[in-house]
């Protein structure tokens, strides 16, 4: 168990810079998720912490030791790969114990630990099998057992669930989370799936093109996205965006987008000025059907309804723009119907049209 700190990490392949001047510090015991679109440098970052990739410049410190130039095996980290990366010709037991055998742990101790992790991950019936005779989920459990048995300072996961079907992914996600609750080992988990990140993380580090766009708890990221990019990336269904211009009349603050007028709480957006060009962010999950005369009412014609079981996403054409909202009452509307829906002022996000930065007051 250890804290990790990365300072001004840069990584370039030839002239192509993939990570630029990235600073990150992860306290002991934390479960951190690197989240971002594919190609943004999450794996590269993880692999530099693991030692599988050289850093071009900068330092990686694990547990107070500068490991920037240490071999992967000497860093006390264990990694689980998306492809499982099991040794194909070894049995499950040999796979799991390969690392501790290399460390020279005494045989009885290895046997004891093997029994423990196999029991924890439900692998006891498969110990003598070869990886190719296991399902994907079982193979990934073996990979997790192989990481756990070493009792590392840090766990690294690189999209470990991406090759599994949805149901199994959910199950293993819970198991990984439980494992972290029990062991409290500092963990970095890479994924491009925002839902996975939201459900599993203590803290999300949201990356974009080799830099950190925002970091914070899942709630912070969801409720107070620092940029339009974050707001767009997080949340399903995706946030509606509406270009608007600000009108301030005395105490009242409104954003106008053609015939639509959305009132904003002035205490949250004290910096906005009349005529300022902004983009409004309206989360589908924060909107619902509303009776005539409600505040911040939007009116449109239903285009499509997506049934999600307990609730449904309604996509409506609002003055030429498609907007969606989520409601439990979706069974009462039909495509072609006129619908009215509304959002509470405190749930509206406002971003600068040019820079994409959130215009919410600091400290909120």
């Amino acid at each position, binding site marked *: 168990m250890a804290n990790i700190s990365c300072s001004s990490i840069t990584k370039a392949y030839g002239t192509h810079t993939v990570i630029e001047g990235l600073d990150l510090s992860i306290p002991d015991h934390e479960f951190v998720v690197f989240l971002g679109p594919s190609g943004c440098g999450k794996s590269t970052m993880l692999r530099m912490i693991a030692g599988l990739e050289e850093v071009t410049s900068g330092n990686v410190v694990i547990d107070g030791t500068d490991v920037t130039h240490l071999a992967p*095996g000497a860093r006390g980290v264990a990694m689980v790969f998306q492809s499982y990366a099991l040794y194909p010709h070894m049995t499950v037991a040999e796979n799991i114990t390969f690392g501790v055998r290399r460390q020279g742990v005494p045989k009885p101790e290895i046997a004891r630990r093997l029994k423990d992790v196999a029991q924890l991950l439900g692998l006891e019936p498969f110990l003598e099998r070869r990886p190719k005779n296991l399902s994907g989920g079982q193979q990934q459990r073996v990979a997790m057992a192989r990481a756990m048995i070493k009792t590392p300072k840090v766990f690294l996961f690189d999209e470990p669930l991406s090759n599994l079907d949805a149901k199994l992914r959910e199950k293993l996600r819970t198991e990984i989370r439980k494992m972290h609750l029990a062991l409290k080992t500092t963990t970095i988990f890479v994924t491009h799936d925002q839902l996975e990140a939201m459900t599993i993380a203590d803290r999300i580090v949201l990356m974009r093109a080799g830099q950190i766009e925002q970091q914070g708890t899942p709630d912070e990221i969801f409720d107070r996205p620092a940029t339009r990019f974050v707001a767009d990336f997080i949340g399903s269904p995706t946030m509606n965006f509406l270009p608007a211009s600000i009108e301030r009349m005395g105490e009242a603050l409104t954003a106008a987008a053609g015939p639509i007028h959305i009132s904003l709480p002035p205490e949250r957006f004290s910096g906005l000025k009349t005529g300022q060009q902004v983009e409004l962010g309206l989360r589908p999950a924060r909107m619902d059907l509303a009776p005539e005369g409600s505040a911040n009412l939007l009116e449109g014609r239903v285009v499509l309804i997506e049934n999600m079981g307990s609730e449904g996403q309604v996509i409506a054409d609002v003055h030429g723009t498609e907007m969606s909202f989520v409601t439990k009452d979706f069974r009462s509307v039909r495509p072609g119907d006129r619908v009215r829906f509304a959002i509470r002022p405190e749930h509206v996000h406002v971003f600068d049209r040019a820079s994409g930065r959130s215009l919410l007051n600091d400290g909120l």
Partner: protein
Amino acid sequence: MTRKHFVFWTLAPATVVLASLALVSIAGAVWFSLMNRTLRSPDYEFVGAYNYLRLLRDSRFFNALQISAIWEIVTVTGTLALAIVLAVLVHETVKSPLRRNLICFAFLAPVLLPRVAAAFIWRFLYSPSLGLLNYLAGLLGLGPIEFLADPSIALLSVAVVDIWQWGLFFTVILVKLLETLPKDPIEAAMLDNASLWQIHAYVTLPMLKAPLISLVLVKAVESLRSFDLIFVMTGGGPGKATETLDLYAYQSGINLGGRVSYASAMSILLLIVTTIAFTIIWRAGKKWAG
């Protein structure tokens, strides 16, 4: 036409030609082996199993059998060992693709030489008076070493030439095979604290088990056909120190005695022995590869 028909009809002509050639010569050899024909006299008669029974009492035959077995073991293990060591070395030390390809190209050169040419080059290198190797040995205060005339090292000296040709060739194949392996298990082994040689011994080479077994079989078959190399380098000598079965068959059938029937019996026995030996090796290899 179905795929099966297509395969059948495209393979059929070549198969017929090859099968008839092989069958005719094998049948001919069996036929000869039951006579007492020699090149010296036109008379012959049917002698049944006489040639085979005599072979079982021929100590020179058993000597040749032993030399052949040693030759097989030394050249096959030597070739594979050299190839594995060099391939791992190239894989780990030469990272630039251009340099790697240049090395592979250079390693391919020896096997492209005709056997006879390779044999003459090495006879010259081995020469006690003019050879480069003895010059180098002389600098170290050794020698002159009679590489080809000393019965205790002659077979090994010839084997070195064979290993030089085929070991370097197999190195190229292994280098290319190592490049095809998935990176993830190797990286997992690095994180599992395995040293470089442990990674190769426990992870990469076991992953190449199936192609390695194929290489062993290819080389084992190839080693059976080293007549030209041994013939040019030592002619089976000194004494009988490098006389493999094919050399002995040649010596007794063509060169000295001209006892064609006796030599035919020897080839037939050789055919049977190798067929049995290879079947066993093949089965064992398949079982081991799992």
